Protein backbone atom coordinates (compact mmCIF):
# COMPACT_ATOMS: atom_id res chain seq x y z
CA UNK A 1 0.00 0.00 0.00
CA UNK A 2 1.42 3.38 -0.96
CA UNK A 3 1.90 6.10 1.61
CA UNK A 4 -0.62 8.17 -0.23
CA UNK A 5 -3.24 5.44 0.04
CA UNK A 6 -2.64 4.92 3.74
CA UNK A 7 -2.86 8.67 4.34
CA UNK A 8 -6.11 8.73 2.41
CA UNK A 9 -7.46 5.83 4.47
CA UNK A 10 -6.48 7.62 7.66
CA UNK A 11 -8.27 10.79 6.54
CA UNK A 12 -11.34 8.77 5.52
CA UNK A 13 -11.41 7.02 8.89
CA UNK A 14 -11.24 10.37 10.62
CA UNK A 15 -14.29 11.51 8.65
CA UNK A 16 -16.23 8.31 9.39
CA UNK A 17 -15.34 8.74 13.04
CA UNK A 18 -16.43 12.38 13.16
CA UNK A 19 -19.70 11.64 11.33
CA UNK A 20 -20.49 8.99 13.99
CA UNK A 21 -20.75 11.82 16.54
CA UNK A 22 -24.45 12.71 17.00
CA UNK A 23 -23.37 16.36 17.20
CA UNK A 24 -21.46 16.25 13.88
CA UNK A 25 -22.31 19.32 11.85
CA UNK A 26 -19.55 19.75 9.30
CA UNK A 27 -21.41 18.39 6.28
CA UNK A 28 -20.21 21.09 3.89
CA UNK A 29 -16.59 20.36 4.75
CA UNK A 30 -17.23 16.64 4.23
CA UNK A 31 -18.83 17.47 0.87
CA UNK A 32 -15.77 19.44 -0.20
CA UNK A 33 -13.46 16.63 0.90
CA UNK A 34 -15.46 14.03 -1.02
CA UNK A 35 -15.50 16.23 -4.14
CA UNK A 36 -11.71 16.26 -4.35
CA UNK A 37 -11.54 12.81 -5.95
CA UNK A 38 -13.65 9.66 -6.42
CA UNK A 39 -10.97 7.85 -4.40
CA UNK A 40 -12.10 9.87 -1.39
CA UNK A 41 -15.63 8.48 -1.60
CA UNK A 42 -14.32 4.91 -1.98
CA UNK A 43 -12.06 5.33 1.05
CA UNK A 44 -14.87 6.93 3.05
CA UNK A 45 -17.28 4.09 2.27
CA UNK A 46 -14.68 1.52 3.31
CA UNK A 47 -14.15 3.43 6.57
CA UNK A 48 -17.89 3.60 7.22
CA UNK A 49 -18.24 -0.15 6.60
CA UNK A 50 -15.43 -0.90 8.98
CA UNK A 51 -16.95 1.35 11.65
CA UNK A 52 -20.38 -0.22 11.26
CA UNK A 53 -18.88 -3.70 11.33
CA UNK A 54 -17.14 -3.06 14.66
CA UNK A 55 -20.20 -1.39 16.18
CA UNK A 56 -22.47 -4.25 15.05
CA UNK A 57 -20.05 -6.79 16.51
CA UNK A 58 -20.03 -5.08 19.90
CA UNK A 59 -23.80 -4.67 19.86
CA UNK A 60 -23.99 -8.48 19.77
CA UNK A 61 -21.86 -8.73 22.89
CA UNK A 62 -24.72 -9.27 25.30
CA UNK A 63 -26.26 -11.98 23.19
CA UNK A 64 -23.00 -13.92 22.82
CA UNK A 65 -23.68 -16.25 25.70
CA UNK A 66 -20.30 -17.90 25.91
CA UNK A 67 -18.58 -14.60 26.22
CA UNK A 68 -20.42 -12.37 28.66
CA UNK A 69 -19.54 -8.71 28.81
CA UNK A 70 -16.54 -8.40 31.05
CA UNK A 71 -16.50 -4.63 31.30
CA UNK A 72 -17.33 -3.23 34.69
CA UNK A 73 -20.45 -1.06 34.76
Amino acid at each position, binding site marked *: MTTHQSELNEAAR*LWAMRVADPAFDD*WDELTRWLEISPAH*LAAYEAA*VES*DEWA*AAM*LAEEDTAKENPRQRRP
Partner: protein
Amino acid sequence: MEPQAGTSGLHATLLNERGRLLRFLAARGATHDAEDVLHDLWQKIAAGPERPVADPVSYLFRAAENHMRDIRRATISREKRQFDWQGLGDAPEDEPAGERILIAREQLQHVQAALASLGSRVDHVFRRYRLDGVGQAEIASELGMSLSSVEKDLQKAYRTLAELRIKLNTE
Protein backbone atom coordinates in the same frame (compact mmCIF):
# COMPACT_ATOMS: atom_id res chain seq x y z
CA MET B 1 -53.77 14.59 4.49
CA GLU B 2 -52.81 17.84 6.17
CA PRO B 3 -49.06 17.85 6.85
CA GLN B 4 -48.20 18.20 10.49
CA ALA B 5 -46.22 21.16 11.73
CA GLY B 6 -42.93 19.29 12.19
CA THR B 7 -43.01 17.78 8.73
CA SER B 8 -43.89 21.03 6.99
CA GLY B 9 -41.13 22.77 8.95
CA LEU B 10 -38.69 20.13 7.72
CA HIS B 11 -39.94 20.57 4.19
CA ALA B 12 -39.37 24.31 4.36
CA THR B 13 -35.82 23.62 5.56
CA LEU B 14 -35.34 21.12 2.76
CA LEU B 15 -36.32 23.76 0.20
CA ASN B 16 -33.99 26.30 1.78
CA GLU B 17 -31.07 23.89 1.94
CA ARG B 18 -31.78 22.10 -1.32
CA GLY B 19 -28.56 23.23 -3.00
CA ARG B 20 -26.33 22.14 -0.14
CA LEU B 21 -28.14 18.82 0.21
CA LEU B 22 -27.91 18.08 -3.52
CA ARG B 23 -24.23 18.89 -3.55
CA PHE B 24 -23.68 16.61 -0.56
CA LEU B 25 -25.69 13.74 -2.10
CA ALA B 26 -23.83 14.06 -5.42
CA ALA B 27 -20.45 13.94 -3.65
CA ARG B 28 -21.68 11.13 -1.42
CA GLY B 29 -22.23 8.84 -4.41
CA ALA B 30 -25.60 9.84 -5.87
CA THR B 31 -23.75 11.70 -8.67
CA HIS B 32 -26.23 12.64 -11.43
CA ASP B 33 -29.16 11.09 -9.57
CA ALA B 34 -28.91 13.47 -6.61
CA GLU B 35 -32.30 15.07 -7.42
CA ASP B 36 -34.06 11.68 -7.52
CA VAL B 37 -32.31 10.56 -4.38
CA LEU B 38 -33.36 13.72 -2.56
CA HIS B 39 -36.91 13.17 -3.74
CA ASP B 40 -36.89 9.56 -2.45
CA LEU B 41 -35.34 10.70 0.80
CA TRP B 42 -38.09 13.24 1.31
CA GLN B 43 -40.77 10.59 0.60
CA LYS B 44 -39.15 8.43 3.27
CA ILE B 45 -39.07 11.24 5.83
CA ALA B 46 -42.64 12.34 5.09
CA ALA B 47 -43.90 8.75 5.43
CA GLY B 48 -42.12 8.29 8.75
CA PRO B 49 -43.52 9.05 12.19
CA GLU B 50 -43.82 12.65 13.26
CA ARG B 51 -41.14 13.55 15.76
CA PRO B 52 -39.76 16.77 17.17
CA VAL B 53 -36.63 17.89 15.36
CA ALA B 54 -34.34 20.22 17.29
CA ASP B 55 -32.06 21.07 14.39
CA PRO B 56 -33.77 20.52 11.02
CA VAL B 57 -30.64 21.20 8.93
CA SER B 58 -28.58 18.62 10.82
CA TYR B 59 -31.50 16.23 10.74
CA LEU B 60 -31.74 16.41 6.94
CA PHE B 61 -28.01 15.97 6.36
CA ARG B 62 -27.97 13.03 8.76
CA ALA B 63 -30.95 11.50 6.99
CA ALA B 64 -29.15 12.01 3.65
CA GLU B 65 -26.03 10.27 4.97
CA ASN B 66 -28.10 7.34 6.28
CA HIS B 67 -30.02 7.13 3.02
CA MET B 68 -26.78 6.79 1.04
CA ARG B 69 -25.67 4.05 3.45
CA ASP B 70 -28.96 2.21 2.90
CA ILE B 71 -28.59 2.46 -0.88
CA ARG B 72 -25.07 1.11 -0.72
CA ARG B 73 -26.06 -1.79 1.54
CA ALA B 74 -28.90 -2.69 -0.83
CA THR B 75 -26.55 -2.55 -3.83
CA ILE B 76 -23.96 -4.74 -2.15
CA SER B 77 -26.47 -7.40 -1.11
CA ARG B 78 -28.07 -7.38 -4.57
CA GLU B 79 -24.68 -7.87 -6.21
CA LYS B 80 -23.87 -10.60 -3.75
CA ARG B 81 -27.11 -12.44 -4.43
CA GLN B 82 -26.39 -12.22 -8.15
CA PHE B 83 -22.86 -13.51 -7.59
CA ASP B 84 -24.07 -16.44 -5.48
CA TRP B 85 -26.88 -17.22 -7.90
CA GLN B 86 -24.29 -17.59 -10.64
CA GLY B 87 -22.54 -20.11 -8.43
CA LEU B 88 -19.47 -17.93 -8.05
CA GLY B 89 -19.59 -17.22 -4.33
CA ASP B 90 -19.39 -19.28 -1.20
CA ALA B 91 -23.09 -18.55 -0.57
CA PRO B 92 -22.65 -18.14 3.18
CA GLU B 93 -26.43 -18.08 3.64
CA ASP B 94 -26.28 -21.77 2.76
CA GLU B 95 -23.77 -22.41 5.51
CA PRO B 96 -25.25 -23.98 8.61
CA ALA B 97 -26.50 -21.31 11.02
CA GLY B 98 -24.31 -22.78 13.76
CA GLU B 99 -21.20 -22.15 11.72
CA ARG B 100 -22.15 -18.54 11.03
CA ILE B 101 -22.74 -17.94 14.73
CA LEU B 102 -19.35 -19.40 15.54
CA ILE B 103 -17.63 -17.16 13.01
CA ALA B 104 -19.43 -14.08 14.37
CA ARG B 105 -18.52 -15.01 17.93
CA GLU B 106 -14.90 -15.48 16.99
CA GLN B 107 -14.84 -12.10 15.26
CA LEU B 108 -16.39 -10.48 18.31
CA GLN B 109 -13.63 -11.95 20.48
CA HIS B 110 -11.04 -10.45 18.13
CA VAL B 111 -12.75 -7.05 18.37
CA GLN B 112 -12.87 -7.26 22.17
CA ALA B 113 -9.22 -8.29 22.37
CA ALA B 114 -8.16 -5.54 19.96
CA LEU B 115 -9.95 -2.88 22.02
CA ALA B 116 -8.64 -4.30 25.30
CA SER B 117 -5.08 -4.17 23.93
CA LEU B 118 -5.42 -0.38 23.58
CA GLY B 119 -6.05 0.02 27.29
CA SER B 120 -9.20 0.37 29.37
CA ARG B 121 -9.64 4.09 28.71
CA VAL B 122 -9.58 3.77 24.92
CA ASP B 123 -11.87 0.73 25.21
CA HIS B 124 -14.31 2.69 27.37
CA VAL B 125 -14.22 5.82 25.20
CA PHE B 126 -14.89 3.82 22.03
CA ARG B 127 -17.82 1.97 23.62
CA ARG B 128 -19.37 5.17 24.97
CA TYR B 129 -19.03 6.74 21.55
CA ARG B 130 -20.04 3.93 19.26
CA LEU B 131 -22.21 1.68 21.41
CA ASP B 132 -23.96 4.22 23.63
CA GLY B 133 -24.02 6.99 21.02
CA VAL B 134 -22.50 9.62 23.32
CA GLY B 135 -20.77 12.50 21.51
CA GLN B 136 -17.09 13.38 21.89
CA ALA B 137 -17.76 16.58 23.85
CA GLU B 138 -19.93 14.72 26.37
CA ILE B 139 -17.38 11.94 26.77
CA ALA B 140 -14.68 14.55 27.39
CA SER B 141 -16.70 16.14 30.18
CA GLU B 142 -17.72 12.78 31.66
CA LEU B 143 -14.12 11.66 31.94
CA GLY B 144 -12.54 15.05 32.60
CA MET B 145 -10.48 14.72 29.41
CA SER B 146 -9.71 17.26 26.72
CA LEU B 147 -11.62 16.95 23.46
CA SER B 148 -8.41 16.27 21.57
CA SER B 149 -7.52 13.39 23.93
CA VAL B 150 -10.92 11.84 23.31
CA GLU B 151 -10.38 12.23 19.58
CA LYS B 152 -6.93 10.64 19.79
CA ASP B 153 -8.30 7.68 21.76
CA LEU B 154 -11.04 7.18 19.20
CA GLN B 155 -8.55 7.42 16.34
CA LYS B 156 -6.49 4.65 17.92
CA ALA B 157 -9.56 2.44 18.23
CA TYR B 158 -10.72 3.17 14.69
CA ARG B 159 -7.31 2.46 13.18
CA THR B 160 -6.89 -0.78 15.12
CA LEU B 161 -10.38 -2.04 14.24
CA ALA B 162 -9.96 -1.18 10.55
CA GLU B 163 -6.69 -3.12 10.48
CA LEU B 164 -8.34 -6.02 12.30
CA ARG B 165 -11.19 -6.13 9.80
CA ILE B 166 -8.78 -6.28 6.86
CA LYS B 167 -6.81 -9.03 8.60
CA LEU B 168 -9.92 -11.11 9.31
CA ASN B 169 -11.21 -10.68 5.76
CA THR B 170 -7.95 -11.80 4.18
CA GLU B 171 -7.26 -14.73 6.49
